[in-house]
């Protein structure tokens, strides 16, 4: 098609919209989308898509289009297939395996009977036709960032353009001054979604006001927080929304070059981004003289290589520069001296994905969503002990109860909710008493956690809080770059204390020592990683102090996680003398003759739990 001018882009969008309109109404054709994000593919969605295509070809069905889409966020029910037949409710099917495909095609496409056993959700198309209907695809959610995820084919720029793609860029290039763009952003109240929540408009303004011959825009897609994958899904499902925002940022602050820093662990996201960048270049939406406006901007990909600290902006800059990703003291902030010493805007994927919508719908519209200080929505990766794990986007101010029980379907296996963890290794745990607290930046800070990038991990009564704190500390100890002593030494020492507690070797004064170390780390560490590394310890201490005391004073772990504290015993009433435990024991700690009660020797027992798992009669007791 070649490079586009403004007129050609508008004409193309009109033509694409007409085509889609025709496809979905007058032509009465059937639209099928299969979610092909990393999760979906891992669950076998590639095979499902293939089987669908074949079954439709075999039956010679006309007017059926099958396309790949990004992640719909329903990770618990992958592979996901969405079928829209004109005149019928839109049906989302979950867990569709190739073996189910024939039935699906026969019943739903030919006989027009949805296959009830596979239906995840069914909604009449017209029932949700409010002005913001396109954001309200799923109950209790409001999808701005994920507006196109699971709907468009991420490998086709045309599908993005048809859904208002690059409309905001048009406005910014031809109708708005950089000041007006900043004004809208300011009005919107958008704050950085990478964790710290700094107002985006201010960040851009700083960089804009620094005179320099070269400025840079960097997109931080180094999503290293374990248990978080919002950015991966956004990039896999809707890469152009982020590219468009980067060009807008470039135009606004006066940068001509952008870098995309993305984890090497996300191969599919990288491939889709590469495709998106080359398509945008071919259309003239990247490169010289964008849409004939005279403005030039291009984007290069840079791969991360597995270092959590590179999420910190000065460390990220060092990594993009090809060096070890070690942070440096701030100020100067990257907004003034960033990449290669030039003023640099660094925004996270989710922050950027909001921007085209803000500019199209207006900052005023955006600021009506959310709470007084936290505007818009937040994407969460809802995982852990929850029935419907997946990706959700809710207005700021939604409560944990709504997220966990209404959207997430409650706790797995009917167990009791114990805590939710947000902010990953920099965050904290939220106990049940705050289930009804509206979630925004300020409230989370008050209760000792942080918004973080959006990992939300649900824990039940079988999870031990000492173990959870130990898990996060082990992570930050591994990931500390070693540059400053408070983080390097403090983290290690704290981790050693936690190991001592879990092993039943701690003494009462240890908790005070730990609190001191936590404080020193918070105050004296060089970067955010060290300053926040103690949060998981402090917040578990704050809400689950009893559990720590139990470990220390009584040498007990109620959740049954800290192996050294467990005692195994065989119940003589239940034991039938089958010998299964004896054979399973790796250290010969179990003795007993066939058909007679077996006995565990506590001195030899290494508390591995193999006997517990091997016994079919529930005779091995753990306390």
């Amino acid at each position: 098609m070649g490079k586009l001018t403004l007129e050609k882009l508008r004409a193309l969008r009109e033509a694409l919209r007409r085509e889609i309109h025709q496809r979905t109404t007058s032509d009465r054709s059937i639209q099928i989308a299969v979610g092909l994000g990393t999760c979906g593919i891992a669950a076998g969605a590639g095979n499902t898509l293939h089987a669908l295509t074949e079954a439709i070809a075999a039956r010679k069905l006309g007017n059926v289009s099958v396309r790949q889409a990004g992640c719909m966020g329903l990770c618990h029910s992958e592979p996901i297939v969405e079928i829209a037949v004109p005149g019928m409710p839109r049906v989302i099917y979950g867990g569709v395996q190739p073996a189910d495909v024939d039935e699906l095609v026969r019943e739903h496409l030919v006989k027009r009977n949805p296959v009830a056993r596979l239906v995840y959700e069914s909604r009449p198309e017209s029932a949700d036709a409010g002005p913001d209907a396109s954001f309200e695809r799923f109950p209790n959610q409001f999808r701005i960032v994920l507006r196109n995820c699971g709907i468009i084919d991420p490998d086709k720029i045309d599908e993005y353009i048809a859904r208002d793609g690059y409309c905001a860029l048009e406005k910014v290039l031809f109708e708005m001054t950089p000041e007006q763009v900043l004004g809208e952003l300011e009005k919107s109240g958008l704050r950085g979604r990478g964790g710290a929540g700094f107002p985006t408009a201010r960040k851009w303004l700083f960089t804009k006001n620094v005179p320099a011959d070269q400025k840079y825009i960097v997109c931080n897609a180094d999503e290293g927080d374990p248990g978080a994958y919002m950015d991966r899904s956004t990039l896999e499902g809707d890469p152009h929304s982020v590219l468009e925002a980067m060009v807008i940022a470039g135009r606004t602050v006066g940068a001509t070059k952008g870098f995309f820093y993305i984890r090497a662990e996300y191969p599919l996201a990288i491939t889709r981004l590469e495709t998106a960048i080359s398509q945008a270049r071919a259309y003239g939406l990247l490169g010289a003289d964008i849409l004939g406006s005279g403005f030039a901007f291009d984007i290069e990909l840079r791969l991360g290589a597995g270092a959590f600290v590179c999420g910190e902006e000065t460390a990220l800059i060092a990594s993009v520069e090809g060096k070890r990703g070690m942070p440096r003291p701030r100020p100067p902030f990257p907004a003034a001296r960033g990449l290669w010493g030039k003023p640099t805007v660094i925004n996270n994927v989710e922050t950027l994905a909001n921007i085209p919508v803000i500019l199209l719908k207006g900052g005023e519209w955006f600021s009506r969503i959310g709470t007084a200080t936290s505007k818009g929505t937040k994407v969460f990766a809802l995982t852990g002990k929850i029935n419907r794990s997946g990706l959700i986007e809710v207005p700021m101010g939604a409560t944990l109860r709504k997220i966990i029980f209404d959207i997430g379907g409650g706790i797995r296996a009917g167990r009791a909710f114990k805590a939710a963890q947000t902010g990953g290794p920099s965050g904290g745990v939220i106990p049940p008493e705050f289930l009804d607290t509206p979630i925004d930046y300020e409230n989370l800070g008050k209760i000792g956690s942080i918004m973080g990038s959006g990992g939300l991990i649900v824990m039940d009564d079988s999870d031990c809080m000492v173990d959870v704190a130990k898990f996060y500390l082990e992570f930050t100890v591994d990931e500390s770059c070693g540059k400053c002593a408070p983080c390097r030494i403090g983290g290690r020492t704290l981790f050693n204390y936690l190991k001592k507690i879990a092993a039943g070797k701690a003494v009462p004064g240890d908790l005070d020592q730990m609190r001191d170390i936590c404080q020193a780390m918070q105050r004296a560490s060089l970067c955010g990683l060290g300053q926040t590394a103690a949060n998981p310890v402090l917040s578990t201490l704050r809400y689950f102090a009893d559990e720590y005391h139990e470990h220390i004073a009584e040498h007990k772990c109620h959740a049954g996680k800290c192996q050294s504290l467990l005692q195994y015993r065989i119940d003589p009433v239940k034991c039938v003398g089958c010998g299964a435990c004896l054979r399973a024991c790796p250290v010969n700690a179990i003795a007993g003759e066939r058909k007679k009660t077996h006995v565990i020797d506590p001195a030899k027992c290494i508390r591995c739990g193999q006997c517990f798992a091997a016994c079919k009669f529930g005779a091995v007791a753990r306390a």
Partner: protein
Amino acid sequence: MSTTTEPTGAPKLTDELLAFIAEWKSRPGSLIMVLHRVQQTFGYIPRAVAFEVAELLDVPLAKIYGVITFYNFFKLKKPGRNQIQVCLGTACYLRGGEDIVHAVEKQLGVGLNAITPDGEFSFEAVRCLGCCGLAPVMTINGKVYGKLETGQLPAILAKYRQV
């Protein structure tokens, strides 16, 4: 370690890599991108190749070593023919990722971050593969196995052994 793509003798930069380096040499901050490409080709960063890269990019070898050892992703040792990664991100950890690690150790007869003596498997734990919805998760040569149970492991590993 017999069946690998590596030619006999010390590994050397391939023509494709030479072309890549020529293309990237002039761009600032190219070292990490070059190392990625080297690892893609060899499965790790061979010492001999690091010498060549140092020469071509005009970067001290010490700096290259510093970068390789800073990032978890880069390897100095040649991995096994099949690479197993068990995820120990938070979601996988809570849903029994450690049990998977122990079970794989038992199956392979080697511990974490080791290579089996026959060079068939290398085995490491990683932090979050971003498939938390499918926890616990493991990948073998990039293929993701989700909602794993320890009982499935013998059959999965056997598939890779036979080849």
